[in-house]
């Protein structure tokens, strides 16, 4: 059968697409920043001295990594509502994404911390650095620099996964697409446009992360080689 592609109908909704893409980026940005902080803290917890804290962080990571994001989103959104805490879809979506990506970040950063040579720590201790100084100046910067590519991929995946929040009616790109395709009956065109938009967004994110690595890691800026 013949099918005439008509992109004009969905494209006339372009302000909606732009708004949806902006929401997707906002969600991803918030989840990236807070998820990164949560992940670094939990990674320090898993590698730290306290055994019960390490076990707690381990349970968190395993629980999140072995259940679907969709179910986590439902638990946050409907679960909080059922215990009387009313949150809007965007907040619930952000919270669920932070909890989710925090677990993955934990695993990645933990691998980075474990790759730090014990001699570095001993040297730092000999120089009389405090524990906080050792963490923030000796352990974390090279650890994060080493796992930076893995973190980048994880946050790009997070941006793509944020499409799942359309299921609790957070008005991001996929939710916008669902509405537009039911308005225009041009579902192939609508979803192709959205797929292209996601592709562009993921390229932009990779570019931003690549540029940020040159600002964040002076070694790379100076000699252009990763450690």
């Amino acid at each position, binding site marked *: 059968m013949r099918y005439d592609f008509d992109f004009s109908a969905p494209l006339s909704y372009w302000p909606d697409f732009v708004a949806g893409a902006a929401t997707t980026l906002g969600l991803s940005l918030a989840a990236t920043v807070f998820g990164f902080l949560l992940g670094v803290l939990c990674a320090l917890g898993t590698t730290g001295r306290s055994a019960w804290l390490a076990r707690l962080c381990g349970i968190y990571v395993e629980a999140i990594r072995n259940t679907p994001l969709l179910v986590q989103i439902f*638990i946050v959104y409907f*679960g909080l509502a*059922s215990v009387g805490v009313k949150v809007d879809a965007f907040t619930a979506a952000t919270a669920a994404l932070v909890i989710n990506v925090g677990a993955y970040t934990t695993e990645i950063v933990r691998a980075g911390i474990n790759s730090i040579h014990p001699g570095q720590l001993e040297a730092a201790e000999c120089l009389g650095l405090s524990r906080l100084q050792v963490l923030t100046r000796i352990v974390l910067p090279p650890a994060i620099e080493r796992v930076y590519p893995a973190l980048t991929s994880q946050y790009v995946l997070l941006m*793509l996964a944020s*499409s799942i929040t359309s299921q609790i009616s957070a008005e991001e790109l996929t939710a916008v697409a669902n509405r537009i395709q039911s308005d225009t009956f041009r579902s*192939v065109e609508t979803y192709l446009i959205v797929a292209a938009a996601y592709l562009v967004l993921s390229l932009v994110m990779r570019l931003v992360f690549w540029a940020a690595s040159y600002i964040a890691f002076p070694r790379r800026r100076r000699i252009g080689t990763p450690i």
Partner: protein
Amino acid sequence: MSLLTGPQLQFLFQGLLWTVVLSVMAFVGGGLLGFAVAILRVYGSAPVRNLTMLYIKLVQGTPLLVLLSLAYFGLPTLGLRIEPLTAAGLGLSIYVSAYLGEIWRGCIESVPRTQNEAAECLALSWRQRLAHVILPQAMRIATPPTVGFMVQIVKNTSLASAIGFVELARAGQVINNATFKPFITFMVIAALYFALCYPLSVWSRRLERKFHVANR
């Protein structure tokens, strides 16, 4: 908050069964397609290699939800009638093929080049080299990450609920709509997914450790 009733639990287990069916479909379909992708990506001519790379980049740069929507809402407008199960199986297979293809490409390429050269010197044909020299070694390398990726497949089948296929997540939504006990319902759902995924995670880690020990 009382627990779920017997029929509700039965409904959930039926959903669990469909999740398993969908996972197997996605793994088999995506595995076959992914194997083709990996082989073309390594051994294809330059344009074929570039095309498969484009395919991988396109699929990996698109959310699974959009792929599933394209299959389910898109194909009927092109004149194909499609069931939710077929659409979900198709969308998931395409998604899985891009990731498994890329994983397996890495595994094929990590077999030392000298193995291939030695086999060539023994006058083995390309097919013989692949079947008897390269793939057996690549498969050993590929097992831990493949098992690890199965966890992703099981979790991602939950998105089939968005196109109306009643698997575990959808079954949970249906029960929640009837009972409005979201917390307990979705906790049970999460526990069931965990029961499916955690053994796979542990198995993958164990395989990885075994592999590392064997290569020390």
